[in-house]
């Protein structure tokens, strides 16, 4: 089974490729790349005017199955992923029940195989049921197929437990992904502490609720010799701490969400609950630091933290609404509009943040157009203008503050494991 993609702009930061050419897929793998490929193929895709890239890997997605299938299922979540160009997503473990055992990891992998859309990399919990009391059986999680552990949604409060969990995780070569939040400093807050929380009279969350735990977790990872990845960085102070740690040679990486580099806390003046996220949207000084962090490499990855919630859950008074917004389908466009158009990154760098780096950090072996690798690819129309409306959403939930926005750039075709899963923006 051969698929030939013709005349696209091939961008692969892992091999330093950025040139026009063709790409051939054979038996699910990339078999030839570059130049003019004269081969007969069962399917030919014309990528003229478009970009050919390895599929994006989201290091932070919430698929609500099992437990909250009313908000999102594995099928709807992976459909949304494909729409957004994500050929692999890391499913975060805060489902009901939590993903803290090998059986659960296997369940997710089986479901992904059944649904035949994007791949799932199940992230196991650090502690049993994410309660912060006992470590999970990490070797079993790793052997079942987990590349990483996280208690995301919460921080591990007990520093000694976290230290030991990090030591253990490093022993079995698991990445530790930290959601950094000091619950006490968070103090029941609902938005960033700053001029706007004062204006709006909403309970404030200081940046230090995040930065103090970023510092703590980095020091513990250093002590434990573990690989650490900081989830959804939101504050300028955190970026600085990570930058300094990298200078010291600590094995730490970091991600940022598109909503954190696009929106500031000023947007909350409307009290739109779709803007209520954890960590919160912060000030312009923070978004600037995040974008600079992406530019200088302090922040390695763009991840969505796709968090579906029902309309009935979000249509409440601000204090009562749950935290979170969806993001799989808007990540690329926001990256283009906020980072490329505003000259923080160019296309190869954006693709590095969405594909090459996450794959590298997860030791996944994808995120590349190298010959012989599994063919997870996307074709992107970089200039396409489209409107993000409720009708276009593939996720089961629609909790996004970007509804109604005019977007630039769209993924038009997606290939997963050498099979065309989306063609001309239509899921097959």
């Amino acid at each position: 089974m051969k698929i030939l993609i013709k005349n696209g702009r091939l961008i692969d930061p892992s091999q330093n490729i950025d040139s026009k050419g063709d790409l051939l897929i054979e038996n699910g793998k990339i078999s030839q790349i570059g130049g003019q490929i004269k081969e007969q193929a069962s399917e030919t895709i014309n990528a003229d005017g478009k970009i050919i890239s390895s599929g994006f890997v989201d290091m932070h997605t919430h698929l609500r199955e099992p437990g909250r299938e009313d908000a999102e299922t594995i099928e709807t979540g992976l459909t949304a992923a494909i729409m957004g160009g994500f050929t692999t997503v890391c499913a975060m473990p805060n489902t009901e029940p939590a993903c803290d055992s090998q059986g659960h990891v296997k369940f997710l992998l089986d479901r992904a195989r059944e649904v035949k859309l994007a791949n799932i990399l199940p992230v196991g919990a650090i502690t049993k049921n994410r309660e912060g009391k006992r470590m999970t059986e990490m070797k079993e999680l790793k052997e079942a197929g987990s590349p990483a552990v996280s208690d995301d949604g919460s921080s591990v409060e007990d520093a000694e437990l976290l230290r030991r969990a990090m030591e253990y995780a490093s022993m079995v070569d698991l990445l530790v992904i930290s959601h950094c939040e000091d619950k006490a400093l968070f103090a029941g807050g609902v938005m960033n502490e700053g001029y706007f929380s004062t204006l709006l009279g909403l309970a404030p969350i200081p940046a230090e609720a995040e930065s103090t735990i970023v510092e703590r977790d980095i020091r513990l990872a250093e002590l434990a010799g573990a690989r650490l990845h900081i989830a959804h960085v939101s504050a300028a102070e955190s970026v600085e701490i990570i930058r300094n740690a990298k200078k010291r040679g600590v094995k730490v990486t970091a991600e940022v969400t598109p909503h954190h580099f696009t929106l500031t806390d000023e947007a909350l003046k409307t009290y739109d609950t779709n803007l209520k996220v954890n960590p919160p949207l912060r000030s312009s000084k923070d978004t600037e630091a995040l974008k600079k962090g992406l530019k200088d490499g302090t922040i390695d990855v763009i991840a969505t933290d796709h968090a579906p919630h029902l309309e009935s859950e979000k249509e409440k008074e601000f204090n009562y609404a749950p935290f979170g917004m969806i993001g799989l389908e808007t990540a690329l466009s926001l990256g283009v509009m906020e980072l490329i158009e505003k000259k923080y990154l160019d296309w190869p760098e954006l693709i590095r943040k969405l594909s090459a780096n996450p794959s590298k950090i997860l030791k996944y072996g994808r995120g590349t157009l190298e010959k012989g690798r599994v063919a997870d690819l996307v074709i992107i129309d970089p200039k396409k203008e489209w409107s993000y409306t409720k009708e276009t959403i593939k996720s089961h939930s629609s909790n996004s503050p970007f509804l109604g926005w005019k977007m630039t750039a769209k993924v038009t075709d997606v290939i997963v494991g050498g099979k065309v899963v989306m063609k001309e923006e239509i899921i097959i």
Partner: protein
Amino acid sequence: MKKNTNIKWTKKHLLGIEELSKEEILLILDQAESFKEVLKRPIPKVPTLRGKTIVNLFCEASTRTRSSFELAAKRLSADTLNIAASSSSFLKGETLKDTARNIEAMNIDMIIMRHSCSGAPHFLARCIDASVVNAGDGAHEHPTQALLDAFTIREKLGNIKGLNVSIIGDIAHSRVARSNIWALTKLGAKVTVCGPKTLIPVQIEKMGVKVTYDIAEAVEGADVLNVLRIQLERQEKALFPSIREYIKCFGITEELLDKYAKKEIIIMHPGPINRGVELSQDVADGKYSVILHQVTNGVAVRMAVLFLLSHIKTSIVEEKAEK
């Protein structure tokens, strides 16, 4: 009494003072003056809002504001409906959106809501077609309180422009403080906020106020002290060590006023008062206190608000000419 002949009221809702212009604030105060007149009559009633149905939806306890709004509506001959969350289906878990839409289905014109969550009236205004009046939302705004405070200051001291007003107390959690800051700065007053550092929210200077933790500094030179209630529960949450120390640092006493205050100073408080805490017994009932005047003025000011919201785009001058 000045009449603003050029300004019309065009806003469907009253959610806060932040979005009002100086002229709109003065329009309300001027309208309130004529209603204060009405309240002095033997039959303190006008037929202006006859046939209108006004709902008080109070999701938090209230003595003054609720009674004041109810009386204001009744003095204008409107039909009133009072719903207290504590005795409604809120207790059965019914959402605010459903509650509001169900009430609206009974053909009402306006909902006056007090709620413990900031932004609740904004949410309500998105859910229903009727007008919404914010009677206090969390720590965000309490527009009619600021309006009646401004009315009272104007009544006692004349033009607000250039006056020194000090707001004392738990600023961080106070909707009264925020609305007052907006109203007073828009009207040209110089505002100082004073309280424990732990109860002054970050970057409040950007609202155009001076910050001090020294009560003497706040009192000296002030024409008005607006003293806020200290919530005793804040002590539990590590925000200040004890009531005793709060009184020592920020309590308004006769002694403090004798030492630092101007002779013509007026003392205001939105109520309810913790006697002996933010105000001593003597000061609460003393010669500087205009607290009960505030309450009286509250009815007139709320009548003005209900009237203007019900008569959007009708010129105030035309109405006066008809009388």
